[in-house]
């Protein structure tokens, strides 16, 4: 077995907003929504990014410019090359003819856009809620609309869509309709709240952990107490799996393997 690594030319760079860009690659990969790749310029690091679009001949990843690495990447132009490994990890389940609720916060939104497309292909009806700190950080709004879905947009400051959180919108929706399936991606505290609010409805979430090898060998991304490897058995987890993870919503590990507790989490 060999790892799937390839060096690809960036075909197109889409500027989603001031702090978010999408790279498009003209390369066919076999991937399902929720899976991620490891992307590197072989100069400034290598980090995981969810696949945000994928068709027969190309795929894309959408990244928020947060730190040093993504800062460097944001200078790349069409024609520049990057090294890519993957896709890795588990995928969201795609049912048929069901009512699906998608909830995404911040950089959790891009993989959900890929998911929404696949859900619609299989005749599911999709309701989407996306939340951002502020309107200028919103992403994938147009993309969602292209698939025929008009996402409910929430911002903390009310500068776009309604003021409030994804959770506020979700509780409203659950009062009116009962979806067959809930999907969520975003900050872990939000994921925990979505799970808690899901009220018996099947639920799949996309968790993030610090990644190194991404091939299940180094243990960096393992979640306790069962040693679930987010790079192999994750990043998409269902309720049952999450139920086994006392670590979920409590802490994660930094690059040294030391625990970092989430603010607000009790330990």
């Amino acid at each position, binding site marked *: *077995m*060999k*790892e799937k*690594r390839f*060096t690809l030319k960036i075909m197109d760079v889409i500027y989603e907003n001031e702090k978010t860009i999408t790279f498009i690659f003209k390369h066919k990969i076999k991937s399902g929504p929720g899976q991620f790749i*490891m992307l*590197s*310029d*072989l*100069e400034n*690091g*290598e*980090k995981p990014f969810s696949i945000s679009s994928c068709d027969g001949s190309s795929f894309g990843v959408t990244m928020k410019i947060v730190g040093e690495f993504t800062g460097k990447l944001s200078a790349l132009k069409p024609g520049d*090359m*990057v*090294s890519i490994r993957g896709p890795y990890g588990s995928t969201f389940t795609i049912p048929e003819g069901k009512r699906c609720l998608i909830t995404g916060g911040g950089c959790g939104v891009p993989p959900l856009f890929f998911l929404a497309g696949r859900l619609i292909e299989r005749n599911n009806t999709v309701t989407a809620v996306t939340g951002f700190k502020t309107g200028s950080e919103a992403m994938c709004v147009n993309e969602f609309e292209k698939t025929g879905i008009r996402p409910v947009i929430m911002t903390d400051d009310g500068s776009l869509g309604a003021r409030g959180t994804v959770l506020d919108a979700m509780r409203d929706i659950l009062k009116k309709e009962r979806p067959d399936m809930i999907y969520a991606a975003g900050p872990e505290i939000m994921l925990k709240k979505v799970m808690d609010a899901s009220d018996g409805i099947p639920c799949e979430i996309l968790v993030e952990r610090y*990644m*190194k*090898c*991404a*091939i*299940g*060998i*180094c*243990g*960096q991304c*393992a*979640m*306790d*107490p*069962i*040693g*679930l*490897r987010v790079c*192999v058995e994750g990043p998409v987890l269902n309720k049952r799996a999450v139920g086994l993870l006392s*670590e979920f919503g409590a802490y994660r*590990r*930094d*690059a*040294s*393997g*030391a*625990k970092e507790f989430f603010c607000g989490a009790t330990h």
Partner: protein
Amino acid sequence: MSKKLMIDFLGYTLASPLVLPAGIMGISSGSLARAANCGAGLLTTKSLSLKPRKGHNNPVTACFEGGMINAMGLCNPGIKEGLEEVRDFKKRIESPVIASVFGTSPEEFYELASYVNKSKADFIELNLSCPNVLDEFGVPLSASKDSVYKIVKSVKSVSERPVIAKLSPNVLSIKEIAMAAQNAGADALSMINSLGPGMLIDIKLKRPVLANKFGGVSGPCLKPVAQKLIYEASSCVKIPIIGMGGVISGKDVIEIKMAGATLAGIGAGVFYRGIEIFKKVNREIVKFLNEAGYENIGEVKRIK
């Protein structure tokens, strides 16, 4: 698990001869537990140092024909946090655990051993392949019989746990090093650590693939080198050997035991055949034992 797999090692009876080696999965108590549940008989923590280390930048791994290179850079949360994971593990599972440690001097190793004394770990393993630590003649620590002797001796003077010396393949005479470890009182050897290191280059980006440029070689392609070194070491020491390097099947376990190992570690194999590799290999061992007419794994001995 089958009784045929049970094997004695330094006073312990292990449920399987398979070992989770240092640096594979072993960051958290949960990972160790998972490897145990999958069928490993003995578990090793990530190599722990006095201070936490973030390790090298990504990319830290890359695959090639027959193996992989890695430059994790000995990332670890430090000996204190690392041993807490052992404690959490022991709350749930009885399997013996090796605490792997590394330092840059006999004194550091001594201090690390004192921590292990106070922990729930059953063994201490000395990772002697710390890169960039040279002795007075510019020889890497792991390749100098004097350094190996001094470190093992220092740890033996304090350790209340059996001491396993993990040897590097990058030496001129493995016999010398193995004997130095034994003479200093090591209770067992673990061999081999990753080889090389090696380097892979992305010819389109014109850059080394690993951020650290170089990374140690693991995986199936290591097997012949590992077996040769184990065969040589076992010709001159009496202490048992945990053999590793390219073991990915039941037949590999038999082969490395015939080379002179008592137990067999599986590292890169976790990538090649998944975490269930321990279960699969245990099954393959039993199948081989049955077909070849052995009563149990202990009967498989070093060849001449």
